[in-house]
Structure formats: C-alpha cells, structure tokens
C-alpha cells in the first residue's frame, strides 16, 4: 500500500506553534514522544494530516519525516484526507454488534446521506456525505460495552443509540 499525503499548505499560526511548544515540555527526556500529541493537535486544528504536517512535525521534533509518517500509517485515528464537518465513529466490536451496531451503521449512513459500499480498516478512506456535512467510520471497541450500540460524533459520546431514532444524535449538528 502506498501512502500519498496531500500536498496542501496551511498557515501555521503563532497560537498553534505555542500550543505545540507547550506540549513538547511534557516530554523532557525525549522530544520524539511528542509526535502523537502533535499529530493530534494538527488533526484537530487543520482537519487531517497532510504532507506539510508530516514535515512540519518532523522538523519541530528534529526527526526524519519517515518517523512521523510511520505513525500516521500505524495509528487508526489519523486520517490523511479531510473528513466531513462532523465525524461519526460507530463501534463495531462484539457487544455493540450484538446490540445492533451493524444496523446502526446502516441507519447512520442513511440518515447522513452516505454511501457505505467500502470496507473499514487501515487505509480505507473515510466515507463522506455528498454535502460534506458528515463522515462515518466503523471503528473497533469504544469501551462502553454495557450500553451498546454506541457511537461518537466528533468528541461527543452517545450510548444505547436507537437506530430508528437518530435525531437526538445527529439532529444538533449543523
């Protein structure tokens, strides 16, 4: 599998730079430890990990770009293409599946206007609605097995979701 990072450019604000510098102070022994946190704040700020992200973080931490790239391809939460304005994660794993997570995924896709004919997993691109409002991902265990099926929308967490009534989950997102 070849990974090509998008060649888009964003402006690094002073605020972002100081946020990164603050994080680096958490790792007095090795700056390299700050790679994951910097990838997180990059994705939170700019939406996805681009070629610029990979090079900027590497330079910041005095690493080679490959040291950053190998994490992007390893950790499932990092995406190399933009998601929708609101990113939905539906838990796929056993207890949620027993509680109906496959149906939930179908209904979420239907409600969000997403065509889901692609498998999830590493390298699978994120499924987006045509209007760019929502994107969806079928993820592994979200650790709330007692209240399945569960999903996350951005950082918000929803338990015991009723697939037939998604308005309380999706309704409030613009």
């Amino acid at each position, binding site marked *: 599998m070849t990974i090509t990072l998008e060649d888009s450019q964003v402006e690094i604000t002073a605020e972002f730079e100081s946020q990164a510098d603050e994080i680096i102070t958490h790792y007095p022994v090795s700056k390299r430890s700050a790679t994951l946190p910097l990838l*997180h704040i990059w994705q939170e700020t700019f939406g996805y990990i681009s070629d610029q992200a990979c090079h900027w973080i590497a330079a910041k931490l005095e690493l080679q770009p490959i040291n950053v790239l190998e994490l992007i391809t390893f950790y*499932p939460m990092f995406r190399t293409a933009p998601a929708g304005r609101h990113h939905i994660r539906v838990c796929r794993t056993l207890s949620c599946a*027993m509680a109906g997570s496959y149906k939930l995924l179908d209904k979420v896709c239907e409600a969000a206007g997403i065509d889901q004919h692609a498998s999830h*997993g590493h390298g699978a691109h994120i499924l987006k609605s045509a209007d760019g409002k929502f994107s969806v991902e079928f993820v592994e265990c979200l*650790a709330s097995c007692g209240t399945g099926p569960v999903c996350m929308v951005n950082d918000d967490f929803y338990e015991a979701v009723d697939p037939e009534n998604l308005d309380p989950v999706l309704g409030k997102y613009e």
Partner: protein
Amino acid sequence: MIAPVRIPHPREKRMIFKNIDRHDYAPDMETYLNEGGYEQLKKALTLQPSEVVEEVKKSGVRGRGGAGFPCGVKWGFIRPDEKRPIYLICNADESEPGTFKDRYIIHQDPHQLIEGMIISCFACRVNLAYIYIRGEFPEGAKILEKALAEAREKNFLGKNILGTGYDLDIFVHRGAGAYICGEETGLIESLEGKRAYPRIKPPYFPAAIGLYQNPTIVNNVETLCNVKHVMRIGGEEFAKLGTPNNTGTRILCVSGDVMKPGYYEFEVGSVSMGELIYDICGGLKPGRKLKAVIPGGSSAKVLRAGETYKIKGKDADGNPTENEIGLEDIRMDFDSLAAVGSMAGSGGVIVMDDTRDMVWVLNNINEFYAHESCGQCTPCREGSLWMKKITDRIMDGGGVLEDPDTLKSVADNIAGKTICAFGEACSWPTQSFIAKFRDEFAAKATKRVPAATSPEFMRDSLVKAVS
C-alpha cells in the same frame, strides 16, 4: 457524558466505584476534598517509600488490566539502589472488548485515580509519570488534565509536594486508536513516539528496562485506584477482602444478552457466574437460554453452558480433592477462572444466549484481532487475518469441510510464537470456539461447495502460462 443512574445491587461492595453514579458528586477537587480526598496521600508521605511498597505487597492486590500480576511484586522489581530515573505509567488504554470500567473512573472520579497514582509514584520513587489514555476518550483526557491542574494548584503535584521535598509531575498522553498500546511494552514504545511494537521479554521487563531504557512501572487504572484503598485500610485489612490470593474488590463489566448489563463491583470471588447472570444481571431475556460466556474480555476462552469442570483442591486436612462444577458454579476470581481453562482477564463478561450464531460471534472477534494486530510478528499478522478470512467465508456460505480444522491449526500456530501476548489473545477465541462449538462450525462450513477457481488460476493454464 452522564451515565444512567443505577442503584448498586445489594450484593455489591463498592470501593473503587463508590462515587460512580452519584448525582451529588462532581469530578472536581472541591468535591473530592469534601469527601476526605488526598488524606491517604498525606498519610503515605509520612512513610518511607519502601513501607508503602510493603503495604501493597501485604494487600496482595493483583493487576486489574488482564494478566493479574501482583502489584507489590511488580513494584518490588525496582532495585532499592536504583540510580537511573524511574517512571510510572498509568495504563488507561482500556480497549479489551467487553471492558468498560476505567471509562467511569476517569470520567466521574479522576482524583481517586490521581491520588492512587501519586501514592504509587512516591512508593516507587518516581518523579515523572504519564497517564496513557486511549485516543477515543477525548473528554476523559480533558477531565484528567483539569484534575491534574487542580492537583498542581494544591501542591499535591509539582515541586516539593506538601513540603516533603518530593517532586512529581504527571502528564496525560493520548493514544490514537491502537489496541496494542494496552500491552505494556507496546505502550512504552508508543509513548516514546514510535509504532506500538511490543518488546521481547524476557530477559528485560519494563521494571528493568522500560521507558527511555529506564526502569518503568506500568499499572492499570483500577490497580492504581486500589493503592489508595490499601493506604486507607492497610495492607492486612485489604487482604481480608475477597479470598486468599484473590484480594480486594473487582469490577465486573457485563454486556451482551442479559437484562441488566453494566458494571458491578464485588469482593473478589464473592459471586458465582450463575449468581452474576441470573440474580444480579436479571437473567436472560424472556424465553432465552444461556449458550456461552466469555468471562474476561474478548480474548478469554469461551465457556459453554452445560459444560462441567473438574476442580482440584484440598480439604480441611490437606488431602487432595476433586469437585465437578458447572458453568454457573464458577467463582468470579482469578484462580477459579484459570482453573476452568479461561481467565478473569480484564473483568469483561460477555453473555450470549441461544439465539447467537457462534460462527458470527467468532467472526466478529476475528475481525477485531485482524484489525488490531500490530504486524510485527508474522504468525500473528498473517494468522489473525487468515482466521478472519476463514470465518468470513463460512459466514458467506463458502466454507469447506476442513475449515474448523484449518482454523484450529492456524490458531495453534500463532499462540506461543509471538513477541507479545496478542498472539494468545487472538488465538484463544478461535481455539476455544472450535473446541466447544465444532458442530456449529462444521454444519455451517459444509453447506455449500467452494466457489470454482477462475480458469486463469487452474493448474493447467498456469503451467501453460509459465512454459
């Protein structure tokens, strides 16, 4: 996140989860201090670190993350004359399917964890510690960061803690969706900013060579919370809770086909599987029968309803005895579950009733492990995917007669042949499902003949193409 309010079951003994689901309890410093918070830390700071370790050893508290290794013994691996910096990492990468206890501690009672962690750091002479929290808990990470800031403000953290001359700082480190980071050496690699490839051990366990090549203690969230309670009641009193060698309380996370799934905290070994399912969790749905239970997170070997187990023990005079017990009689503790060939693991109990298709269940589990294998060792990287592909094809009606044997053979060739315990974790489900539900797999796998091979892949055409 507000969890649904639930009154604890009368059989429960809430120690770690005392403040969970309380509407008058907020995850902030003020509430915690009003409830006597950080008193145990003050007490610990009047002792020598070695005395705290001694208390924890006496308590017999075993790791709550999965392996059940005695916490005090782990701490004892740090050499008393150690000159290198020592690190402690709280493993909050809760991701074993079926387990959801740490979520509630982090979200609703973060100071309990932090107090337990500071005491543990003091005991192990640690000046820098991290909480490695899974990436899927963004809110939990924020709550912990706020709680840590509050603790710094009160000088429970930072330089010269409460005037004792002890320095400690704790930082939150977020993972990014990889299950393997729950493995302690994978977690350490991840914290070093690398792919979470577990390290080979023995010879060097993290207590000898861990984070940044220095001695490191990795403890689960629940274990660290227990340390606070060991300080509160003393190691000897703590050891009286539960049964010998299985001390303290245990949070069991029940999910699947029961009427009242959820988390329940008991003295270890005080309930049996039958009591847990039928009394405490309200039994199965109307008209359903119990089919199987996975007792300790998805990697624990499955137990089949109706099975019997021969348990060896000793009578009052020390003579060997042998009892035959059923699934319902198994005590929910480390040793009893190990004795029936499974494990207490992380405390995640997944209950399945007679409507469940075991091939479907195993297929779901296999997909998880195929996705989460870190890819470092060939048997696991390839094998976990093969097992998933085989259960996939059985599900799709393309299974062949040999599939149950092939599955078992693949699983047998992963376990014990990998760097970390993921190899066992991904093969135990397949091994146990095939051993206990072979008929179901065989019946499904023989339904149809395999699809014909495309002509270009037939032997003759391949030979022709080569020649």
